[in-house]
């Protein structure tokens, strides 16, 4: 079993507009075998949390810690965190010309293996074909350049394909449902559910409860104003769907202005 602990995490982003503290003390403990969902209104720090866990250099951790099995990840660059077992399905995957999807996934798998023991071409292709079939993806997708010219839906499926091929201990899915129709969402859910087991944990970030109808979470967290304000079981998501974030905020007596509030 692997454990990921987020401990009183404070994160700042430095951009043209100056310094802005986005996460203001996030606490979270996840174990493999569990699916956690984080819900929350826009602009509340959900994506910042996922990017910071992964190690995006644009985000500055000002205090707190991120621990994988007790080891701090803060001084580890993104590639080392990935090899340690983290995976982030991104909202906006980069497009890379001249590098095929298959070639990229093989490089990612081999990055986790000893130099003198790369995955055999036969094993790789077998696994790739199985996963393409599971995700209703055309075989030609493997030979296309990485995300180059992919539609929004294709990019999301391709993130899940990489997840299935790389088999990380923890996968963070950052709004994997955005821009997906119901059919595509079911396919994505099928992919994630196929990973469920004792050696896999996931943190699903979403605005809407709908995805959670297909991937049932063990724990649901609500994030507002850069903190987790409430955690519960799958019922919490349903309650939110009915009452909205303002309802929960007022119930908790929080003094937070929601971005999209009129």
């Amino acid at each position, binding site marked *: 079993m692997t454990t990921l602990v987020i401990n009183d995490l404070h994160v700042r982003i430095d951009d043209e507009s100056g310094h802005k503290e986005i996460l203001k003390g996030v606490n979270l403990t996840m174990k493999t075998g569990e699916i956690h969902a984080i819900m929350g209104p826009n602009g509340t720090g959900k994506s910042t949390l996922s990017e910071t866990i*992964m*190690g*995006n*250099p644009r985000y500055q951790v000002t205090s707190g810690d991120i621990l994988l099995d007790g080891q701090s990840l803060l001084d580890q*660059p*993104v*590639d080392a965190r*990935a*090899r340690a077992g983290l*995976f*982030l399905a*991104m909202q906006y*995957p*980069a497009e*890379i*010309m*001249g*590098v095929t999807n298959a070639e*990229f996934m093989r*490089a*990612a798998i081999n*990055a*986790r293996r000893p130099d003198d023991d790369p995955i055999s071409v036969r094993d790789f292709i077998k696994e790739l074909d199985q996963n393409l079939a599971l995700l209703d993806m055309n075989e030609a997708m493997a030979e296309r*350049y990485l995300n180059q010219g992919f539609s929004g839906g294709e990019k999301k499926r391709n993130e899940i394909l*990489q997840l299935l091929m*790389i088999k990380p201990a923890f996968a963070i899915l950052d709004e994997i449902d955005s821009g997906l129709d119901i059919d595509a969402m079911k396919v994505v859910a099928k992919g994630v559910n196929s990973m469920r087991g004792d050696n896999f944990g996931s943190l699903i970030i979403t605005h809407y409860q709908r995805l959670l109808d297909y991937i049932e979470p063990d724990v649901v967290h609500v994030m507002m104003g850069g903190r987790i304000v409430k955690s519960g079981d799958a019922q919490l998501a349903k309650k939110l769907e009915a009452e909205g974030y303002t309802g929960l905020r007022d119930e908790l007596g929080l003094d937070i202005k929601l971005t999209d509030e009129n």
Partner: protein
Amino acid sequence: MSKTKTFCELSDLQHYSQQLQEPAVAWQMRQQAWQATMTAPNPSFAKINYRPWANLQGQLTVASQAVPLPASTAQIAQVAGQPVQVRLSTEAQTAGVEVLDLVAAWQQWPDLMQQYFGQVMPWTSQQLAATHYATVNSGVVIRVPANTKLQAPLTWDFYQNGTGRQLNSQHVLLIAGADSEFSILENRRTLGSDQPSASIVEELVLLAGAKVRFAAIDQLSLPTYLARYARLATNARLDWALGIMNDGDVLADFNTDLNGQGSQSEVKAVAISTGRQNQGITTRITNYGQHTKANILQHGVILSDATLIFNGIGHIVKGARGSDSQQENRVLMLSRTARGDANPILLIDENDVRAGHAASVGRVNQEQMYYLMSRGLSKDLAERLVIRGFLGSVLSEIPAAEARQILTDTIERKLIDGQRHRDRAQ
């Protein structure tokens, strides 16, 4: 501008020519070229300062001790300053392809030499050319007969001699007969690590209707002036695919003249500069004939403190009606201390033409790096993939699979070396 001291006395040159038993006409040419070295201007290439490295050095002597030719499967192989080794394929022999060492060509093909040698690259117009023609001490002449169609490429491997102080001044002359069709795969490397500088001139003559695909992979480590000049007759077509993967400082001067009506040429070049290396690459295509077509596509990558300059020159002369000149030059810089430039230069002296250009100098996209690394790829590997993608748009355009594969492998080798050098320096 001060002139550098001449590389040798005229009497040395005469002695050398006599040792080779050159005909009078060859000696006269050397003599005129030698005189031109004292009066001809240095050639000028925009934004490239080659003075510190491109002046030819070395001793003009007939090689006393031959450097062994490395094992090579090429049909034509030569170490600069030494005789050529020719092992033509059965296909090329049957087709009547003929190859002679430059010295033998002066003796056996005097008419052909007078007609073509030094005619594609003007030999007294500028300093580096004049120096080359005065000192040329090795070379090869290739004739492909009219109407010859070759399936397999003509392969040739050329080596600079970096051992000892002998002069490296090598010349290649190719005559592609009318309506011939074939491809060439050239490899250039350096033996040894002493550092005299070198001069290489290639002249390609394409007679009417000839179609030639020329792929070259340069991995030179001596400071070198490398000129590739071509002249195309009516309806001829020449496609260049050049991998400029040198480890030394190189001044590359690529020039194609579209003389004949309807002739066309495409130059696809990829280059990588690493360490403290300087590479300046000027690619010029001139449309003289009507309805001629030129296309230049150059992509380059710079690591560490290296310099890489691409000049693309598209020149359409007056009267070349219905001609087309296009070019794209792009440079990717991987470090803050890299120096690079991409200069498109269009010189248009005719109205009824089409011309266009694109150019960019940029840095590696950090979003792409983050994405690749987020899947566990090391920074170096991620960087190589992004670079491969950047060069890939040129690479994928190279028609010969064999040349493409060799070039892909060479790029990988050069990048790994460059990254290792950089990582050590940090």
